[in-house]
């Protein structure tokens, strides 16, 4: 079976500076891979490149069978990127947000309801405006949007940031369940101990390169 992510000697430039300098990485379906490294090492750039947001300057890059060198936009509706922001509309309710993002891929109301239930958002939180939620509840709503969007590859940048202890435990459970359900997860995090326990593999990102442990 073809790997979900296959990067070979990838070079990417951001704002005139090399963000990735010959990065190589292979990720198989169902894996949870932890990207760890110091700030500015290229973790976020790697995630954005896999999401088709950052162009490949040199090297070969395939994500979910899509060649990012030939057309980096083709992969976009199959991946979900969750960075420091959640991509939510504060004035809309949890249900409105999940329905909107689900509708971008033609998800039915049934799929939206299932996504809400999977993130335990089908109770009283369903009709609460996102602007009134806690950081952890917003994170869960953003993940419900990824589920409703049928994202096959989850690209998460510091997903535990801003969450309390309960929120962090919740998120760990969600990631395990997502991988068990067939999603592939790439996580950039400084929470080495926590994410390290979840991950099937840990790789170091240093100076725009990926080093296997």
């Amino acid at each position, binding site marked *: 079976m073809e790997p979900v992510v296959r990067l070979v000697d990838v070079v990417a430039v951001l704002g005139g500076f090399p963000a990735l300098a010959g990065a190589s990485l292979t990720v198989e379906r169902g894996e949870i891979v932890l990207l760890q490294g110091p700030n500015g090492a290229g973790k976020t750039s790697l995630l954005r490149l896999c999401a088709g*947001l950052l162009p490949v300057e040199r090297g070969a890059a395939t994500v979910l069978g899509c060649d990012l060198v030939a057309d980096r936009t083709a992969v976009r509706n199959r991946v979900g990127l969750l960075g420091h922001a959640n991509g939510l509309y504060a004035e809309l309710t949890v249900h409105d947000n999940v329905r909107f993002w689900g509708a971008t891929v033609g998800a039915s109301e049934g799929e939206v309801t299932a996504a809400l239930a999977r993130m335990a958002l089908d109770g009283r939180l369903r009709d609460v405006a996102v602007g009134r939620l806690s950081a952890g509840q917003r994170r869960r709503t953003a993940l419900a949007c990824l589920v409703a969007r049928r994202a096959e590859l989850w690209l998460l940048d510091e997903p535990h940031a801003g969450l309390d202890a309960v929120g962090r435990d919740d998120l760990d459970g969600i990631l395990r369940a997502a991988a068990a359900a067939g999603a592939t997860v790439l996580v950039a995090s400084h929470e080495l101990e926590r994410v390290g326990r979840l991950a099937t593999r840990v790789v170091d990102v240093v100076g725009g390169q990926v080093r296997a442990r």
Partner: protein
Amino acid sequence: MSVKARSAAAQAWRVARLVAVKDLRVEWRSRVVLNQVLPFAAVVMVMFAFALDNTDLLTRVAPGLVWMATIFSLQVLVQRSFAIETADGALDALQVAGVRPGGVFLGKSLALAAELAVLEVVLLGAAIVLYRTDVPAGRLGLLAATYLAATCGLAFVGTLYGGLAAGAKGRETLLPLLMLPVVAPVLIGATRATEAAFGTNDATTGDGWPWLGLLALFAAVFGTAGTLGFGSLIDE
């Protein structure tokens, strides 16, 4: 039109409806247009009346004042339209979701046009009350066509430049600087065509149609440019 092109157009239209409904729902929940933009526009109209302080003069220049107030308010509407996209990274998320940028452009333009239409009705009412403007029944067709073309043009330019400024530092001050010179043809065309519809300064209906043509051309050019170019505008 080929099957592929028809399918792309249908997808873009589906996205446009989705984004327009979402934007209008956000507005319905937040009531920013109702509670902030409409009062702002009304205050601008009153300030014009204070500044000129001459009913005859106000009646003569009413078409220009109405469109000036509309364009000032457009700045606020566009800022708001893109603030909801950038506040929590939704514009980035739309890109990652592979949503057709042309559809996003059309959807945001549709929502902006709907909000502008409400604003323009209020401003027209304010002109009738404050500036003693008369709208002859026989010229309502020209007035409606002028409003339609000018609203589309302003919504397209607003969305295009709102998208351009969305990722920039200092976007709040950058947007008026970029947008005001570009909407000058709409200000001129809409003012002249509205003068013809109001019968101001002895203008006849015939005087208004060429200006309406300019407004329609402007809307068509920016509508097409925005639909085709919005993707590269918001991309990294």
